[in-house]
């Protein structure tokens, strides 16, 4: 999958479902969890979004703040996971 295509999906999901504000000027490398912008409650949503949208299951131990802290990081994790399939 094209990185930009994946990134746009992650970005749209983050703005609409997590930040609930499509107008928010989110930078792709902006920390989401570590900044407190969204709380760890949303981690489960990120996991299910990746499963349903990309058909990729990220196991619990990898669904961490370290791996998922920005649109860029989430996209990279998805691409790495898809490449490994």
């Amino acid at each position, binding site marked *: 999958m094209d990185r930009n295509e994946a990134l746009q999906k992650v970005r749209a999901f983050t703005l609409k479902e997590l*930040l609930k504000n499509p107008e928010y000027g989110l930078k792709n490398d902006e920390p989401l969890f*570590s900044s407190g912008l969204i709380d760890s409650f949303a981690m489960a949503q990120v996991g299910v979004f990746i499963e*349903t949208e990309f058909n990729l299951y990220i196991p*619990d131990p990898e669904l961490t703040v370290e791996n998922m*802290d920005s649109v860029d990081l989430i996209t990279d994790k998805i691409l790495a996971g898809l490449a490994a399939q």
Partner: protein
Amino acid sequence: MTLPFINPVEVLQRRAQETPNRLSHMLLGATDAESHSLTYSQLDAEVKKMAAYLQSVAEPGQRALLVYPTSLEFVVAMFACMYAGIIPIPTNPPGMNRSAQRLEAIARDARARLVLTTPEYQHAFLAEAAQFPDFAALTWVTREAVEAGSGHSLQIPVITPQSTAFMQYTSGSTNIPKGVVISYRNFSHNMHALHETRIRGNEYADDSVILTWTPLFHDMGLLIGTFLTPMDGTPSILMPTIQFMQNPLNWLKAIQKFKATASGGPNFAYDLCVNKIPLEKCEGLDLSTWKIAYNSAEPVRAETQARFAEKFAPFGFRPEVQAPCYGMAETTLVISYYTGEKKTITQRFRRADFEEGRLVPSDSDEQKESVEAVSSGVPLVDYQIAIVHPKNRKRCAPNEVGEVWISGDSVGEGYWNRPEDTKHTFGAHIAETHEGPYLRTGDLGFMHDGHLYITGRLKDLLIVRGRNYYPQDVEMTVERTHPALRAGGGAAFSVTEDNVEQLVVVHETQRREMDGVDWNEVIKTIRTNVAREHGIRAHAVILIRRATIAKTSSGKIQRSEMKRQYLANELQIVAEWRAPS
């Protein structure tokens, strides 16, 4: 035994006079330059300023929600309420991703008058004011408002053991929050109990340091991180929870850096350290100052304790500092605590008997043959524990598992404004002898050699990563996903896989709706909705044939029977999704 009454307002003022320059609390930032601290005299001064302001905008006895991240402001606000005679209610501040619905439910239930918070949260909440009109009617207090409104005088109220110290909203399902009323009598007794844990652990000394990363709005962070410090005169290092979640090594490194003597968390935190910290990153790590490593708020696993001790022994970690504990918001915090042995104390029992509530010792190490129960320690000062048959309310025989009932001065005064729930949970009496009142913990367990063992739950509560979930809340979310799912036909329960509790959802379908329904899409929506509303990923979602969910004769869902069918592969499945293994 009569323990002296500890009045936190007097104690903090005395510390401010006797040791004004001693460190009270330090908040860790991402770098040293971003860390902040308060001495006793600074804390006392900040508290008095805020308390005076609070008295100018509210009456004694009114309730205030505290909505803060882990911060020194939270500590100031807690004490300021106590100095002002306002009843503080610590709450879990939601991120932008979450609705303020639960906060509003708490505000309504407590009939709160004030919200003490930061300007950022105030802004975010008032943006939702149209949705939550009750919020706009509250008085919002930020540090800026306090600074602008200074110059008020403070009248510290008389505090008696019967006065309310604070309320803890941690019980009850999402939609019906219940506030545990903690009086100063309860608070004082639990402070003695916490102090006793330190004495037993040989941890209490002039160079003691407490380090917490668990949230301050939760009983463990609240009592240990916020209050224990001034009461015992030990500095408290506060680490924002996110710093631990980002990398559990941050926790261990902070213990080393500040030479912390007491620190801990739920079982999953120790698992994370074992599974997520690469050994090569531990070079130079020194955990030798650690004297109490408490493990509480979810079931303690012997395997986790053993693996943690083994992995970190080369870095100065001593297994005898591992301290499984047991406690809950209804008892202020701590009930039992244990320390001093070389390893976690466990007992093995024959599985077949154990599952029926009988304790028959077993020598077998085989999982199939035996179960291993982990001691949650020895009950602390002045607690009475009774193990009781939950149905007939008679005391169990010594070799039987029953519901754990507790009495003692730490047991809270009841649920705020809920006399029926209070009577049921806080006012239990043993049949025939009428001993009581006891608190019904809803947990199952037994006593053995003076140790309390918790073996399961009577109440259908799911505990995943230290968070409590009520199955009826999850079932309601699932049911609302699609009209082809039968109302009241779902069971949510947890199973243990790889030592971790996981959520399983089973739900009945309706036959007349079945034609043309894309069940896989329904399952996707269920997973999405459960994650969004509860912050948890379902491990398995299974839709079953109509009229195959187990119910009692009175129509209650039999979650344990559905769990049994799930484990035995006996469900009549229409469609399913399971997490890949």
